C-alpha cells in the first residue's frame, strides 16, 4: 500500500515537471517565432511611425535594416527636418546620428528607458526586446482561440518588466497583443497587432500600436509599408561609417 502510494507520488513528481517542460519548450518555440516574425535572418523594411501625444502629433517615415537578433539600422526619411537622422544598434550598444550637427551620440545605459525619437517606444525596446527567448522563462496557456504566453525574466536578465504577456492566435500563430507589467504587477503598456498583410510571401501584422497606460493621450502607431526578408545584406550596413553617411 505504502509502495503504491510512494510510486504514485514519484510518478506525479516526475510527470508534472516533464509535462510543463514539454509545454515550455513548445512555448519557447512559439516565442522564438514571435522574435523572428519581424526580423527573420535579415530584413529590409520601410515603415511609417505616427506619434500622438496631447500636445503634438507627427508622422515619421523610415527605413530599417536588421540582421539576426543583434544588428539594427534605422534611418529617417521624412519629414524633411529630420531626414537622415539614423540609429545604429550593434549587440548591446546603440548610437544616434544627427546630420545637421554632424554628430554621433552614443546612447548611454541610463538613457535606455528614454523614448526613441519622441515615440512611446524606448531605446531599450529597440535594443533588447529582440532577444526574448534568451532572456525570459515562458509559459503557455490556451485561451479559446488564442494562446497566452507569459514571460518572466530569468535570474540574470536586466529588465524593468516583471512580466510580459503575449496573446497569439492559435491558427495563424501571429501575435495579437503584447502587454508589459511592472514589478507591482500593474499593466504599464500594451502593444496591439493588427491588419495581417502579405510581405514578400510572409504573412505578418502590418500595424503595431503601442499604448502606454500611465500616460493618457499618448499613442504610437508603426505601420510596415514594405518589407523584404532573408535578402543578402552587405557587411557595411551595420557600421559607424554607414551611420554617418549623408544621403
Amino acid at each position, binding site marked *: 500500500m505504502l509502495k503504491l502510494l510512494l510510486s504514485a507520488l514519484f510518478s506525479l513528481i516526475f510527470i508534472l515537471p516533464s509535462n510543463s517542460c514539454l509545454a515550455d519548450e513548445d512555448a519557447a518555440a512559439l516565442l522564438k517565432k514571435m522574435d523572428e516574425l519581424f526580423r527573420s535572418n535579415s530584413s529590409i523594411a520601410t515603415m511609417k511611425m505616427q*506619434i500622438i*501625444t496631447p*500636445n*503634438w*502629433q*507627427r508622422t515619421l517615415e523610415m527605413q530599417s535594416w536588421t540582421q539576426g537578433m543583434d544588428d539594427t539600422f534605422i534611418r529617417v526619411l521624412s*519629414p524633411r*527636418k*529630420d531626414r537622415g*537622422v539614423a540609429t545604429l544598434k550593434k549587440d548591446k550598444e546603440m548610437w544616434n546620428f*544627427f546630420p*545637421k*550637427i554632424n*554628430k554621433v*551620440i552614443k546612447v548611454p545605459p541610463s538613457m535606455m528607458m528614454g523614448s526613441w*525619437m*519622441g515615440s512611446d517606444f524606448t531605446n531599450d525596446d529597440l535594443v533588447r526586446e529582440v532577444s526574448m527567448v534568451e532572456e525570459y522563462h515562458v509559459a503557455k496557456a490556451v485561451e479559446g482561440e488564442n494562446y497566452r504566453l507569459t514571460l518572466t525574466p530569468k535570474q540574470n536578465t536586466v529588465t524593468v518588466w516583471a512580466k510580459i504577456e503575449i496573446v497569439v492566435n492559435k491558427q495563424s500563430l501571429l501575435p495579437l497583443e503584447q502587454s508589459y507589467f511592472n514589478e507591482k504587477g500593474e499593466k504599464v503598456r500594451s502593444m496591439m497587432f493588427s491588419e495581417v498583410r502579405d510581405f514578400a510571401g510572409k504573412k505578418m501584422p502590418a500595424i503595431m500600436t503601442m499604448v502606454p497606460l500611465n500616460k493618457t493621450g499618448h499613442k504610437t502607431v508603426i505601420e510596415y509599408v514594405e518589407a523584404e526578408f532573408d535578402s543578402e545584406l552587405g557587411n557595411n550596413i551595420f557600421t559607424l561609417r554607414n551611420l554617418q553617411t549623408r544621403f
Partner: protein
Amino acid sequence: MLTFKLAFRNILRNRRRSILTLLSMGGGFFLLCLTLSMSEGSYSNIIDIFTQDHTGHVQIHKDDYLERPSLYKTINNVDTLMSQLESNDNVIGIAPRIFGPSLAYGKNKTFPAQVIGIDPQLESQTTRLKNKVSQGKYLTNTISETGYYSAMIGYSLANNLGITLGDELVLISQGIDGSIANDIFEVSAIVGDANSYEKMNVYLSLPAMQEFLSMGKNQVHEVVITLENQSLARSFSKKTQDKLVDTDLNIEPWQVVESSFYNSMQADKKGSYVSMSIIIFIVSIGVLNTILMGTLERTREFGVLKAIGTRPSSVFFLIILESFALALISCLLGLLLSLPVCFWLASSGIPMPEPIDMGGITFDTMLGEVSWFVILLPSVVVIASTLVVSLIPAIRAAKISPLQALQAT
C-alpha cells in the same frame, strides 16, 4: 482762545526750556527719519537691482508655467498682447522669452544648459543683460556669414565646455513638435561671471530659438515687463489681469515670481523693525523726559491758575496744547535738518567698503530714500508720543488742589 494765547505765552516765556525741548524732540525726529530713509532706501535699491537683473517687475506666463514649466505652455498671441501692454503709460520695457533646457556640446565635453530665446533689442531695454557682456558683442538677430545664428553663452558654461568667442556651440533639445531639436550656433559673446545668474545659460535670438524648437512666430513662454517703479508691480499686475481677455494667462508681480527672495527680504525687514522700534522708544522717552520736567517745574504756576479760578479742563487743554505746539515745531525743525541729508543719501549714498553679493548681484552702495513714509512716520511717532506722554502731567495738574500746588517747592 485764551488757552491758545496762554499756551504760546508759556512757550515763549521760558525760551531756554522751550529750545531744549525742541532740540531733544527734533533730534529724535532727525534720527528716526534718517534710519527709516536708509533702511527703506537700501531695500528699494536691492529690489531695483534685483528686478533689473533678469526678473523684471511683472511677468506673464501661461497657466502654471511658473511652478511647473513645460515646453508646451506657450503664450500664443504675443504680438497682440505686447501691443496691448505697450499702450500702458507705466510700462517702460517689455521682453518676450522662450526657455528650452538643452544639452550643450563644446569641443569634446557636454553640459546641460538653460537656453533662453530673447529679443536682443527689447531685452536690453528691460534688463541689464546687455551690460553684462564681458567678451564679444551683444546678440543680434542676424545669421553670420558661415550660416549660423549667433549665441551668447554664460561664463561658467563657456569655461566648462572649453569654448570661446567664434567657436561652434552644438545644442540638442526637444522640439515642440516632438522632434529632436539639434543645431549649431556660433558664440558671439560671453556674459556674466562665475557668480552671476547667467553662468550656465545660453542666449539665442528669438527667431533662432523659434526655429530651433520648431515653434511658431508668435509663441513665447514668458513676457517680462518693467514699470516706472517697482512699487507699482502688484497693482499693475492685478489691473492688467482683470482687463485681460485671455484668461489662460497669469500675470504675476516680482513678489510672486521671486517669492523666496521676497520672503527672505520681508523677514529681514521685520528684523530691522525691531531695531526701529527701539529707536522710537528712545525718542519717546526723551520726549517724556522734557515734557515731564517742564510741567513738574511749573506746579506752583498751575496752583496760581487754579487759585484765580481756572477750570481743571482748561488747565488740562493748556498743557496738551503746549506740548502739541512744541511737537509740531520740533517736527518742522527735524524735517529742515533731515531733508537735505536724506536727499544727499538718496542721490549719492554711502559706498560700502566690502560689496555684498546676493545671488550673483552685487550691491556696493547704501542708498537712502525720500518718500512720504519716511517723513510721516517720524512725525506721527513724535507727535503721538508727546501727546500720550503729556497726558499724565496734564491730568495731574488738572486735579491738583491750589493749596497743595502753591505749597510745592
